[in-house]
């Protein structure tokens, strides 16, 4: 396949899939008896709902995005520091891992009320809960990366009597980057989901602070189903944007040397 036709197919193929999905969608909608059609509103009805509720949806998106980004950013910083600590010795890892896992094992709806007691409902809680779930994949992957440095390269640094600091900055950290980005991708996928679930469980609509999770609960209660679908699509879009940002960052950082980005001319 020539590069041009390859690029074209990258747009054409998903577009084609999209067209098929929409056709099926309408097919199912009209297959249902009229009184059951509320189960699957048409794309056109959902578009209308977007238009009608755009102010509410925009503010809810902004609130959720804030919570997701705050939690994600916090997870990024804390996990990096903790991964450095954990990479120091197996002793540190065995002492700390069980507790990190315990945190990860506790379901978010159970943690939510605890968070609310501590930091109050709303943005604080959403960010904190997002942090909790985004944090684990980051710390695990980054730690794994920091301790998986190629033995031969470690030997090379020992040979030239590199200081611990030089070894960390010039060897362990760059070698851990692919692992770090694996964690970051998972975190970027679950952070928006976490933020929405957190918002359902610990959100607050006080002062226009409600997020997408909150809005979904409201639309469901009001039986505004097209608006509910519009909310679902919005959460989806939020996840896509964060993912795309992380993928771009990974590509910019790793494209020159990592095998996953190798493009060989044949």
């Amino acid at each position, binding site marked *: 396949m020539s590069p041009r036709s390859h690029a074209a197919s990258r747009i054409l193929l998903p577009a084609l899939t999209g067209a098929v999905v929409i056709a099926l969608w309408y097919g199912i909608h009209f297959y249902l008896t009229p009184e059951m059609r509320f189960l699957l509103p048409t794309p056109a009805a959902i578009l209308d709902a977007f238009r009608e509720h755009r102010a509410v949806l925009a503010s809810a998106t902004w609130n959720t995005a804030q919570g997701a980004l705050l939690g994600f950013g916090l997870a990024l910083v804390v996990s990096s520091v903790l991964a450095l600590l954990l990479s120091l010795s197996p002793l540190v890892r065995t002492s700390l891992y069980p507790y990190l896992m315990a945190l990860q094992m506790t379901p978010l709806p159970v943690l939510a009320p605890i968070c609310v007691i501590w930091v109050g409902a709303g943005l604080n809680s959403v960010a904190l809960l997002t942090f909790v779930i985004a944090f684990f994949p980051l710390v695990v992957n980054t730690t794994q990366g920091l301790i998986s440095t190629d033995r*031969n390269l470690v*030997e090379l640094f020992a*040979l*030239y*009597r590199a200081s611990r600091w*030089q070894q960390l900055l010039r060897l362990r950290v760059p*070698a851990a980057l692919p692992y770090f980005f694996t964690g970051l991708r998972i975190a970027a996928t679950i952070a928006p989901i976490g933020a929405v679930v957190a918002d359902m469980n610990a959100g607050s609509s006080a002062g226009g602070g409600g997020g997408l999770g909150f809005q979904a609960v409201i639309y469901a209660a009001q039986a505004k189903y097209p608006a509910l679908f519009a909310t679902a699509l919005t959460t989806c879009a939020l996840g896509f944007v964060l993912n795309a940002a992380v993928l771009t960052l990974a590509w910019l950082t790793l494209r020159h*040397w990592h095998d996953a980005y190798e493009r060989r001319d044949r």
Partner: protein
Amino acid sequence: MAAAPLVEFRGVTKRFGDGPVVLDRITFSAQPGDFVSLIGPSGCGKSTALRLLAGLSPVTEGELTVAGRTPDAAAAELAYVFQEPTLLPWLTVAHNVDLPQRLRGVPAAARAATTRRVLELVRLGDKAAAYPRQLSGGQKMRVSIARALALEPRLLLLDEPFGALDEMTREHLNEELLAIRGAAAWTAFFVTHSVAEAVFLSNRILILASQPGRIHHEVAVPLPYPRTDDTRLSREYLDLVAGVSRLLRSVPAVPAAARS
């Protein structure tokens, strides 16, 4: 021969932990300018000997000196070429060559000049900005050699540097290595499994026996330097290759300990 030896093994014994003796009372000294090849069965302790020299692993018994000091104190005198190219994949060729100099605190301006010079030496001047994955196996090995040469070592340790390469590339790099050496006469310890390579490169060959690792035989190679492609066709060269091969075959296959 009054010159002080650059490397001196005096009854050097090595064992890892409570394991078996890996090197058994090695006594040997190398003069400045010697090119010493180590050849012997797999597992006889060739790499271990180099690691002792580099101070990467301590001597168990006996005494080992490099330039009159302990290997650890003499670390700045030597460079090491591993069996694998061992390049940092995220650095360009030039930055890889730059790295050990940087770790040793060589100022930036001096580093840049040295890097350019050694890359020219291994004929990779045009690849300075490339990443390791864009190079062939032989080219990567040349970068690894350039990186070692950039430190201007008095002692160069090479552990089967061309083991993974095809015969043609290997012969070519052998000639290149000797040509480079003409410019700066470092002393070399070179591990190989190829008798032809050992004879072509060295003035002394140590044939090691296994379990425990010990010197089975030392062979002097009186062929004059510079050696070229023609050297490989000479009578003396071919006789030496045959002789060393015969000696290598006479190394007991069954470990000494197992026989007794």
